[in-house]
Protein backbone atom coordinates (compact mmCIF):
# COMPACT_ATOMS: atom_id res chain seq x y z
CA UNK A 1 0.00 0.00 0.00
CA UNK A 2 2.79 2.44 0.96
CA UNK A 3 4.79 1.69 -2.16
CA UNK A 4 1.79 2.36 -4.37
CA UNK A 5 1.00 5.72 -2.76
CA UNK A 6 4.60 6.88 -3.15
CA UNK A 7 4.56 5.72 -6.78
CA UNK A 8 1.37 7.73 -7.39
CA UNK A 9 3.19 10.82 -6.09
CA UNK A 10 6.20 9.94 -8.21
CA UNK A 11 4.16 9.76 -11.40
CA UNK A 12 2.39 13.06 -10.65
CA UNK A 13 5.76 14.65 -9.83
CA UNK A 14 7.33 13.40 -13.06
CA UNK A 15 4.37 14.81 -14.96
CA UNK A 16 4.66 18.26 -13.39
CA UNK A 17 8.47 18.42 -13.69
CA UNK A 18 8.40 17.30 -17.32
CA UNK A 19 5.80 19.98 -18.05
CA UNK A 20 8.07 22.54 -16.39
CA UNK A 21 11.18 21.45 -18.32
CA UNK A 22 9.13 21.45 -21.50
CA UNK A 23 8.06 25.04 -20.94
CA UNK A 24 11.60 26.19 -20.09
CA UNK A 25 13.15 24.51 -23.14
CA UNK A 26 10.42 25.94 -25.34
CA UNK A 27 11.17 29.42 -24.03
CA UNK A 28 14.84 28.86 -24.88
CA UNK A 29 13.81 28.01 -28.42
CA UNK A 30 14.77 24.31 -28.28
CA UNK A 31 11.50 22.78 -29.48
CA UNK A 32 12.88 19.38 -30.51
CA UNK A 33 14.71 18.93 -27.19
CA UNK A 34 11.50 19.74 -25.33
CA UNK A 35 9.65 17.02 -27.22
CA UNK A 36 12.35 14.47 -26.43
CA UNK A 37 12.09 15.29 -22.74
CA UNK A 38 8.35 14.63 -22.89
CA UNK A 39 8.87 11.32 -24.67
CA UNK A 40 11.50 10.13 -22.18
CA UNK A 41 9.34 11.09 -19.21
CA UNK A 42 6.44 9.27 -20.78
CA UNK A 43 8.51 6.11 -21.24
CA UNK A 44 9.61 6.16 -17.59
CA UNK A 45 6.01 6.52 -16.40
CA UNK A 46 4.82 3.87 -18.85
CA UNK A 47 7.42 1.48 -17.46
CA UNK A 48 6.07 1.95 -13.92
CA UNK A 49 2.46 1.51 -15.01
CA UNK A 50 3.15 -1.56 -17.12
CA UNK A 51 5.01 -3.23 -14.27
CA UNK A 52 2.03 -2.78 -11.96
CA UNK A 53 -0.38 -3.99 -14.67
CA UNK A 54 1.76 -7.08 -15.15
CA UNK A 55 1.61 -7.77 -11.42
CA UNK A 56 -2.18 -7.33 -11.46
CA UNK A 57 -2.71 -9.69 -14.40
CA UNK A 58 -0.44 -12.33 -12.88
CA UNK A 59 -2.45 -12.13 -9.67
CA UNK A 60 -5.77 -12.46 -11.53
CA UNK A 61 -4.38 -15.41 -13.48
CA UNK A 62 -3.29 -17.13 -10.30
CA UNK A 63 -6.56 -16.60 -8.43
CA UNK A 64 -9.07 -17.32 -11.18
CA UNK A 65 -7.36 -20.54 -12.25
CA UNK A 66 -6.17 -19.64 -15.71
CA UNK A 67 -3.43 -22.01 -16.69
Amino acid at each position, binding site marked *: *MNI*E*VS*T*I*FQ*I*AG*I*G*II*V*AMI*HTVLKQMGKEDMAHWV*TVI*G*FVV*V*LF*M*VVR*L*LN*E*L*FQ*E*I*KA*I*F*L*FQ
Partner: protein
Amino acid sequence: MEILQLAGIGLLATVLILIVREQKPVFAYMLAVFVGAAIFLELIGNIDSVVSMLEDLADRSGVPSVYLKTMLKVIGVAYIAEFAAQIVRDAGLESVAGKIEFAGKMLILVMAVPIIGVMIETVLNLLPA
Protein backbone atom coordinates in the same frame (compact mmCIF):
# COMPACT_ATOMS: atom_id res chain seq x y z
CA MET B 1 -10.65 0.09 7.86
CA GLU B 2 -9.29 -0.67 4.43
CA ILE B 3 -12.05 1.33 2.74
CA LEU B 4 -10.70 4.55 4.26
CA GLN B 5 -7.29 3.91 2.73
CA LEU B 6 -8.72 3.02 -0.67
CA ALA B 7 -11.06 6.03 -0.72
CA GLY B 8 -8.15 8.21 0.38
CA ILE B 9 -5.97 6.93 -2.46
CA GLY B 10 -8.82 7.60 -4.89
CA LEU B 11 -9.39 11.16 -3.70
CA LEU B 12 -5.68 11.94 -3.64
CA ALA B 13 -5.24 10.55 -7.12
CA THR B 14 -8.18 12.58 -8.41
CA VAL B 15 -6.64 15.83 -7.16
CA LEU B 16 -3.23 14.95 -8.64
CA ILE B 17 -4.81 13.95 -11.97
CA LEU B 18 -6.70 17.25 -12.15
CA ILE B 19 -3.48 19.17 -11.50
CA VAL B 20 -1.38 17.23 -14.01
CA ARG B 21 -4.07 17.24 -16.69
CA GLU B 22 -3.68 21.00 -17.05
CA GLN B 23 -0.08 20.56 -18.18
CA LYS B 24 0.24 17.10 -19.70
CA PRO B 25 -2.93 15.06 -20.34
CA VAL B 26 -0.95 11.88 -21.17
CA PHE B 27 0.63 11.78 -17.73
CA ALA B 28 -2.77 12.31 -16.11
CA TYR B 29 -4.09 9.34 -18.06
CA MET B 30 -1.15 7.16 -17.02
CA LEU B 31 -1.79 8.17 -13.42
CA ALA B 32 -5.43 7.12 -13.74
CA VAL B 33 -4.40 3.72 -15.11
CA PHE B 34 -1.92 3.25 -12.30
CA VAL B 35 -4.43 4.12 -9.60
CA GLY B 36 -7.01 1.76 -11.10
CA ALA B 37 -4.52 -1.09 -11.14
CA ALA B 38 -3.34 -0.32 -7.61
CA ILE B 39 -6.87 -0.38 -6.19
CA PHE B 40 -7.68 -3.62 -8.01
CA LEU B 41 -4.46 -5.17 -6.74
CA GLU B 42 -5.35 -4.16 -3.20
CA LEU B 43 -8.80 -5.74 -3.45
CA ILE B 44 -7.73 -8.95 -5.09
CA GLY B 45 -6.16 -10.25 -1.89
CA ASN B 46 -9.62 -10.27 -0.28
CA ILE B 47 -11.17 -12.04 -3.27
CA ASP B 48 -8.65 -14.81 -2.78
CA SER B 49 -10.27 -15.84 0.51
CA VAL B 50 -13.75 -15.82 -1.04
CA VAL B 51 -12.55 -18.05 -3.89
CA SER B 52 -10.95 -20.55 -1.52
CA MET B 53 -14.19 -20.62 0.51
CA LEU B 54 -16.18 -21.36 -2.66
CA GLU B 55 -13.78 -24.15 -3.57
CA ASP B 56 -14.18 -25.68 -0.14
CA LEU B 57 -17.97 -25.48 -0.41
CA ALA B 58 -17.96 -27.10 -3.85
CA ASP B 59 -15.71 -29.85 -2.57
CA ARG B 60 -18.03 -30.66 0.32
CA SER B 61 -21.25 -30.58 -1.71
CA GLY B 62 -19.76 -32.81 -4.39
CA VAL B 63 -20.25 -30.41 -7.30
CA PRO B 64 -17.96 -31.44 -10.17
CA SER B 65 -14.94 -29.16 -10.03
CA VAL B 66 -15.23 -28.43 -13.76
CA TYR B 67 -18.25 -26.23 -13.08
CA LEU B 68 -16.57 -24.18 -10.39
CA LYS B 69 -13.43 -23.81 -12.51
CA THR B 70 -15.49 -22.57 -15.44
CA MET B 71 -17.34 -20.15 -13.21
CA LEU B 72 -14.13 -18.72 -11.78
CA LYS B 73 -12.66 -18.35 -15.26
CA VAL B 74 -15.81 -16.50 -16.36
CA ILE B 75 -15.47 -14.14 -13.39
CA GLY B 76 -11.80 -13.59 -14.23
CA VAL B 77 -12.53 -12.80 -17.88
CA ALA B 78 -15.33 -10.42 -16.90
CA TYR B 79 -13.00 -8.71 -14.43
CA ILE B 80 -10.18 -8.18 -16.94
CA ALA B 81 -12.53 -7.08 -19.73
CA GLU B 82 -14.29 -4.59 -17.47
CA PHE B 83 -10.99 -3.18 -16.21
CA ALA B 84 -9.54 -2.74 -19.70
CA ALA B 85 -12.78 -1.29 -21.08
CA GLN B 86 -12.97 1.27 -18.27
CA ILE B 87 -9.38 2.38 -18.85
CA VAL B 88 -9.94 2.74 -22.58
CA ARG B 89 -13.19 4.61 -21.94
CA ASP B 90 -11.28 7.04 -19.72
CA ALA B 91 -9.16 7.91 -22.73
CA GLY B 92 -12.34 8.75 -24.62
CA LEU B 93 -12.24 5.82 -27.07
CA GLU B 94 -15.78 4.62 -26.59
CA SER B 95 -15.75 2.38 -29.68
CA VAL B 96 -12.62 0.45 -28.64
CA ALA B 97 -14.04 0.00 -25.15
CA GLY B 98 -17.20 -1.43 -26.68
CA LYS B 99 -15.14 -3.91 -28.69
CA ILE B 100 -13.23 -5.06 -25.61
CA GLU B 101 -16.49 -5.64 -23.78
CA PHE B 102 -17.82 -7.52 -26.78
CA ALA B 103 -14.69 -9.71 -26.84
CA GLY B 104 -15.18 -10.45 -23.13
CA LYS B 105 -18.81 -11.46 -23.69
CA MET B 106 -17.85 -13.69 -26.61
CA LEU B 107 -15.12 -15.48 -24.64
CA ILE B 108 -17.47 -15.98 -21.70
CA LEU B 109 -20.08 -17.48 -24.04
CA VAL B 110 -17.48 -19.85 -25.48
CA MET B 111 -16.47 -20.98 -22.00
CA ALA B 112 -20.10 -21.48 -20.96
CA VAL B 113 -20.96 -23.70 -23.96
CA PRO B 114 -20.09 -27.05 -22.27
CA ILE B 115 -22.23 -26.16 -19.26
CA ILE B 116 -25.15 -25.15 -21.47
CA GLY B 117 -24.77 -28.47 -23.27
CA VAL B 118 -24.96 -30.39 -19.99
CA MET B 119 -28.05 -28.40 -18.99
CA ILE B 120 -29.84 -29.14 -22.24
CA GLU B 121 -28.95 -32.81 -21.85
CA THR B 122 -30.51 -32.84 -18.38
CA VAL B 123 -33.68 -31.16 -19.59
CA LEU B 124 -33.98 -33.65 -22.45
CA ASN B 125 -33.63 -36.52 -19.99
CA LEU B 126 -36.47 -35.09 -17.90
CA LEU B 127 -38.82 -34.95 -20.87
CA PRO B 128 -40.85 -38.12 -21.49
CA ALA B 129 -39.63 -39.90 -24.56
